Every structure is written in C-alpha cells, then in structure tokens.
C-alpha cells in the first residue's frame, strides 16, 4: 500500500503517485467509501494519450457511474487487470492494490497544480461542511 501522505490529489478524488515521469492513478479512500461497492471498471486503452483533467476511465458501483480524470497529461502505459477482474479491490485497498491505471507523464510539472495530502484533507472537511444538510 502507498503512503497517502506522499500522493497528490484532485478535487474529483483521484490520487497520483509520481516518480519522474512514471505516474500511477487511483481513487482516494474517501472516494471509494462514497462510491461504495465498485462492481465494474472500464479502464482506458493502453497507448491512449490523455490531457490533464480528461475523463479517461469509468468506475461503477451498484448505484452510479463515476468518471475518473487524468491527474496529469500523458500516455496510458498500463491498466490494473486485477482490479478490472475484481473491482472490489478498489474498496479493499484504494491506495494500493486498487490502483486504476499508469501513465507516462508528458509534463510532470502539472502535478504542482494538484493538492497535497494535507490540502486534500482540508478540502474534504470543507466539502463535508458544505455538503451536509
């Protein structure tokens, strides 16, 4: 399992692990709880070029479908075949075995636009305060 403190986050709850240009993408633990039982993943095609913020993967639960956005621009290099086969992995280990896809970042600097783990935690708190009624 990855240390969430070392990851970057999007407001749409994707996480990014970046080493050089090698990027791995998944959804946060908070997101897997919100999405609930993941039953289907439609991964991007390997070789597809995506732009930062582009919807490129679909994660579905019993009740709804969720678009997953690319945290940085680049070319898809791998998809998590284990998670496609057993989508419950996303719920079981969102920051590890439940990763969704890898990409080769074209412009790694784009990651600076993303939130750090502590910023993401703050963002979740603010969202919870606004979201509840």
């Amino acid at each position, binding site marked *: 399992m990855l240390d969430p403190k070392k990851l970057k986050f999007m407001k749409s709850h994707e996480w990014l692990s970046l080493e050089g240009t090698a990027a791995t993408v998944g959804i946060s633990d908070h997101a897997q709880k919100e999405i*609930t*039982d993941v039953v*289907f993943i439609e991964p991007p095609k390997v070789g597809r070029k995506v732009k930062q913020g582009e919807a490129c993967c679909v994660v579905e639960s*019993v009740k709804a479908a969720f678009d997953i956005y690319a945290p940085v621009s680049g070319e898809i290099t791998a998809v998590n075949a284990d998670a496609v086969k057993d989508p419950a992995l996303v719920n079981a280990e969102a920051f590890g075995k439940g990763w969704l896809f890898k990409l080769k970042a074209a412009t790694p600097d784009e990651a600076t636009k993303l939130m750090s783990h502590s910023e993401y935690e703050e963002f979740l708190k603010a969202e919870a305060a606004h979201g509840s009624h």
Partner: protein
Amino acid sequence: MSTSTAARRTALYDSHKRLGGKIVDFHGWELPVQYESVMKEHEATRRRCGLFDVSHMGQVFVTGPDSLPFLQKVNANDISRIGPGKAIYSHLPNERGGVVDDVIVSCLEKDRFLVVVNAATSDKDFAWFQKHAKGFDVKLENKSDYFGMIAVQGPKAAEIASMIAPQMAALPRFGALELELYGQKAFITRTGYTGEDGCEFIVPNEIVVRVWEDLLAQGRSLGAVPCGLGARDTLRLEAGYLLYGEDLNDDISTYEANYGWVVKLDKGDFIGKDALKKLNAEGIKRKLTPIKLLERGVPRAGAPIILDGKEIGKLCSATFSPSLQAGIGTGYLDRPDLAPGTKCFVVLHGREIPAEVVKPPFYTSPNLKKGA
C-alpha cells in the same frame, strides 16, 4: 418525485444515523440508501436476514359491512379469495386499465381490511378510495402517519421475528396477524419485497424504535443486519417485483407489466375491467421484459435496448445483480413476443453491450418454498 421541500423522517431516523446509515431523499423521505455496503446487505438478506425500515409505506384501513364489495370494486385481484388472517397482492386499476398503485390487502376480520400502499402514492390512493366509496357502507382511514413498518427478510427472518413475536412462527406465507406488541395493537404479515421468506411488522410509531432495536439485538447472533434502500432495490429487481413509479404507473396496464395473473376477469365487476378485458383479448403491444447483460457492465434506467439495429425500448429498472454477478434490468419493449434467449444490445456510455432476454424472475431463492 415529491414536490414538497421538507423531507420527512421516519421514527427510525436517529437509529439509522447511529448505525451509520447514508441518508438520501427517497420520494420526499429521508431514508438510508445503505449502512455499510449494498452488496453486503444484499448478501446478508439472501443468506441470513436483513432488517428494512419501510415506515414510509402507507396503511389504509377499510371497515364496515361493504368492505369486501368495495375492495372488489377497486382491486384487479379477487379479494374474496382471502378470509380473515390472509393477505393478497393486488393492483388498483383505473378505468383505462392503467395502475393507480400496487398494494397488499390483508383481511383482518370479515368486515375489516388493511391495505398497505406505496409511500409516494398513499395520498393519491386514499383520494381514489374515497372517490369510489360512494354508495358503499364503509369507513376509510388513512393511518399512514400513525404506523411505522419494518420488513424482516431472509432465511433466518422467521426465527428472528419469532423472538419478539412468537405467534409469527406459525404464520403461513401471505398470512396476516393482528397482535398486541409492547402493549400496542400491531400487525404482522408474512410478506416482503426481496424474494426471500420473511415478514413485515406494522406497528404504531411510538414502539417502532423498540421493535427495531429488539429485532437487531436478537438478530445479530444469527447474522441479521440493517439494510438500506439500495439492497432493497437490488433484491426486489432480482426477485421480479415491480417498483411503482419506475416500472408501473397510471398509463401502464397490469398485462403490460407481465403481471396478468393479478387480474381476475371472472370475479365480477371492478374499475378498469372493460379496458383490461379488451387488452387481454386484443393482446398487448409492449411488455415489461427482463434483460441480462452478457458482458460486464452496469446498466442504468433509461438505457436504450437495441434489436436488429433498432431501438425497441428503454430500461426502466436496472442494476448490478449481486446474486447473478451480472448487469440486469427490465424495460418495456415494443416486441412483446421476444422469447427468453433472444439476443439484443443495451447502450451504456454510448457503447452497445451484448445482452439477452431472460425468463422472470432473475433469481429464485432456494430458501423459499413455492407459496401463495
């Protein structure tokens, strides 16, 4: 679909919050869609026992010497088939053969009946009853605000329910029981909406929390879990039950819903009989048809169904079936003649996913003996 702004809460709202229920607005009611997981709650109900707060459902009491003739007039099913202590599933047809609501009618005594109606339609149903009660010696009471309702469902349901209501053990399927519970008048029917054995407690709101807590406490050791609306929907769709408002409405007939067995044309006069007779004789032009995806994917209500390159209908109910581990749905198809096994496509995210027509229901519980 409620237009009211203030969401209503059942007496169990605080219990749901305490149990970690994720609250959503359901036809104007604040109810839990799930506690921990739809999948786990679904599985618990299929294998052990699920407890559901269905207090949003309505209760209408019909009493007086003309109770039976009145109920015969407003129901498609033959209410004379049930005597005291029995319940029956029925549709309330309108003059055009459409369905005002689907209900469960319980005969409490010869001249006293309880009609359990859907939440979103309870006011409409009561007004409908009042309109058609003219000339009948009956008293109609809408007690929906007074009663709460808990469904106990699954192979362990009878055992768990009997712990707080021992009379329940002897209740046959579709039996109806009037009893005293914690000093209050209450009702239990051996009915449900999951395709499993089980029963429904109809109890005054002032004791519903106690009934819920006691069922949970007693049931825990047998694996009972509280279940939300999410599991309720996957369970009922697998079992082939209709959801009023999604699968059924004022413009859809019982025959089109593939529930023709509910209509008893030979029972004497009732509202909508002429229209239904005509539909039955002429044949229907669309039929609610169960469809199963042949590739992985989760169909959604509204998804088009394609046959030979042509759209023949849309899904009205759809989900991922935990029991079948496949996407399932039902839709009104312009081709009522399609046999099980017919291959078609369901459009998801702009892609045509291979699917096939199947025989209803999607799932038959091995725990449930064929009953009434």
